[in-house]
């Protein structure tokens, strides 16, 4: 019952819109037939004429023309809509709906269209869509009208506005009307109202619409346009600032993820782990491996492969870290420069190992659908994967913070770093605490790798791209201070992104590096320094 009523309403609206439908009924068939003859130019004229009829039966005809499936049947010269089934075609007569099946390709002749014709058809059809029963279609149609230069449809818009109930579609229609009003010879008062509607709409489109009509206007209205443009421009700048802030926050969260494990190994334990970047790389390759396995074993779970990858990456990177600590680093405590060299050696080793196993080229990690796409927020565009990474970084930070401050293991870790001998004499097995702390830092680098595989290349050099930045963050924030790492990462990310529009990406990075080099010389212990005798010893 319901769909039928809807259709009826649609038909009624249609009739109201076009008025003279029945009067030209007989003229429609020859007009459609006219499409088959003449040049492209003639065809454009015919299309115009068809659109003018306002008859909804031309919609499929024009759609087929635009799609390249409108043909002439050679046997009787009738224009038909075709549908390809296998090697043959089914032809439908546009008005009667009579179907002839199984026509061979050579029984038909294609009616060609070019791009400008297709555009014209699309625009013309959008007028029809204005009276579509589907709200989505009406909205889309109203939005495409915004850039239409055809002011002849103004009265039509008025009619539609009266009939339209949906607030959103009404707004879109009003905006389209405003744009057209400015191009028409309406009074200055109407145009002023139109300007404020467009200004309210905002965004880049309003800006360009206003710029386009500006030369056509009278002096008084022009001033208003200029004022509106000024306000729009400052609004745009504000949005741009926010957008840059978002990019900065996003880069900051990447830096935070990359450096947070280092804040443990370097910041808390004082171990210079140059293979930290390779822990991130191991995490990324774990993600890739998990995805490959799931793809072949249970493709249905592919969407959730990241959830499987997280714990596995933690374990993989964590156990490599554990092995490193037990096998090499523990012999080098108290000798930071040697640690630096040995871990650099390990990083070369790990890179080459990955290159041997997975090959030197980039591997593709698929973004699950819940991480693809973007959210539009006013003038902001926030991509979903970046939002997830920001949330993830904060979650990892919070978890780590709680682990260190609240858990028993965290207590032992802090005890060992503050006074090894005392901790050991109180029964804490310091070697194991060392090994697990290092494994924890490495494991966190591993899960950072899972996240970072979503926004960059997964290659054997992945770690190298992050290692210097990570050290900069930890040193800048102040060694041994998790908050410092958080603030350091975010502020460096934001600083970088705000400098980019001014200086270009590479120069911005150089400037940030130079700034940190100078900063460390001014405050060798970073933003949040430990003070007192503990810091000096």
């Amino acid at each position: 019952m319901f769909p039928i009523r809807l259709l009826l309403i649609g038909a009624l609206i249609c009739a109201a819109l076009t008025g003279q439908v029945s009067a030209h009924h007989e003229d429609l068939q020859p007009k459609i037939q006219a499409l088959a003859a003449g040049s492209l130019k003639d065809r454009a004229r015919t299309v115009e004429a068809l659109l003018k009829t306002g008859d909804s039966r031309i919609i499929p005809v024009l759609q087929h023309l635009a799609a390249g499936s409108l043909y002439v049947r050679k046997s009787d010269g009738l224009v038909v809509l075709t549908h390809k089934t296998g090697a043959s075609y089914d032809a439908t007569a546009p008005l009667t709906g009579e179907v002839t099946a199984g026509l061979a390709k050579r029984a038909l002749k294609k009616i060609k269209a070019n791009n400008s014709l297709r555009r014209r058809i699309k625009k013309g059809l959008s007028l029809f869509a204005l009276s579509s029963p589907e709200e989505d279609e009406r909205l889309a149609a109203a939005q495409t009208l915004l850039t239409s230069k055809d002011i002849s449809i103004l009265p039509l818009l008025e009619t539609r506005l009266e009939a339209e109930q949906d607030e959103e579609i009404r707004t879109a229609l009003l905006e389209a009307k405003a744009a057209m009003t400015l191009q028409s010879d309406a009074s200055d008062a109407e145009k002023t109202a139109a300007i404020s509607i467009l200004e309210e709409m905002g965004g880049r489109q309003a800006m360009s619409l206003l710029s386009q009509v500006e030369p056509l206007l009278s002096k008084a209205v022009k001033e208003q346009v200029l004022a509106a443009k000024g306000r729009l421009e400052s609004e745009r700048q504000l949005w741009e600032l926010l957008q840059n802030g978002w990019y900065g926050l996003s880069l900051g969260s990447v830096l935070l993820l990359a450096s947070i494990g280092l804040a443990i190994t370097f910041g808390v334990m004082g171990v210079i782990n140059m293979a930290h970047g390779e822990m991130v790389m191991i995490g990324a390759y774990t993600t890739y491996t998990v995805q490959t396995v799931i793809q072949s074993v249970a493709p249905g779970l592919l969407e959730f492969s990241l959830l499987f990858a997280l714990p596995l990456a933690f374990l993989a990177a964590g156990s490599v870290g554990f092995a490193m600590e037990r096998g090499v680093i523990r012999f080098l405590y108290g000798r930071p420069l040697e640690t630096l060299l040995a871990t650099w050696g390990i990083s070369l080793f790990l890179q080459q190992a990955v290159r041997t196993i997975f090959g030197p080229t980039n591997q593709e990690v698929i973004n699950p659908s819940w991480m693809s796409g973007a959210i539009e927020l006013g003038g902001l565009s926030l991509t979903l994967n970046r939002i997830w990474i920001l949330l993830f970084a904060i979650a990892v930070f919070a978890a780590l913070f709680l682990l260190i401050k609240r858990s028993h293991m965290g207590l032992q870790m802090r005890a060992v770093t503050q006074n090894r001998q005392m901790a050991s004499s109180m029964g804490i097995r310091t070697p194991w605490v060392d090994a697990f702390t290092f494994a924890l830092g490495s494991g966190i680098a591993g899960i950072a790798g899972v996240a970072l595989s979503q926004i960059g290349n997964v290659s054997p050099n992945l770690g190298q791209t992050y290692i210097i930045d990570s050290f900069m963050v930890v040193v800048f924030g102040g060694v041994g201070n998790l908050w410092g790492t958080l603030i350091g990462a975010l502020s460096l990310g934001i600083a970088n992104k705000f400098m980019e529009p001014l200086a270009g990406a590479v120069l911005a990075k150089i400037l940030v590096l130079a700034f940190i080099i100078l900063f460390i010389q001014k405050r060798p212990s970073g933003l949040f320094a430990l003070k007192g005798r503990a810091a000096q010893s």
Partner: protein
Amino acid sequence: MIPLTSSLLYLDDVHVAFDGFKAINGLSLIIEPGEMRAIIGPNGAGKTTMLDIITGKTKPDSGDVLFEGGLDLTEKDETEIALAGIGRKFQKPTVFESQTVRENIELALAGSRNILASILYQEGEEDYERITQILETIRLDHRAEELAADLSHGQKQWLEIGMLLAQDPKLLLVDEPVAGMTDAETVETAKLLRDIARTRSVIVVEHDMSFIRDLDVKVTVLAEGSVLAEGSLDHVSQQPEVIESYLGR
């Protein structure tokens, strides 16, 4: 320069705080030329921090630190203070381990420290004699050509004192000189410091009470960053505040 005081070292109302913790809290201290002073006090009383302030390692938040009446030590760094005539021995003996005992003393020997002079330096007869003399004073002449790393803990302490002597300072700051020494070595060290104090001022920070007694000098007791008592060892050790601060409340 107009001498503000006739004393060698003058600390007045010095404050320093680390993250809110008041390590030195209104400390005042005066050392006269040629005086030897012992500083005692419980752990955390601010003894080492006080030495850090005098030698320029830590800058005080407020207060005056004057040397020889007019030199404002709060504005100088370690090097300038060392060159002005203040030598310091660390709590943990700090010598150059991969160099010989003689080289250690040679490096400390008074003289021009600039780069060109260091490159062109030739050891003369006079310097050689002086080094030998210092090595005899610190009883290490028989080990002059050995690496400092091979010395015992007590001998390293002595070597460090020897280096201070070679520096020829007006004021010597000695932080726990007898930690880790045998009783015999402790007695020897006390004798050595008394010898040294004949020609210059010395501040000794120490925990070892029998050693302080051996030194037989005026004692200053520090507690919670300021002076608690001053006087002879017998005098201060009878004061109730001192006993309380050592034993706790």
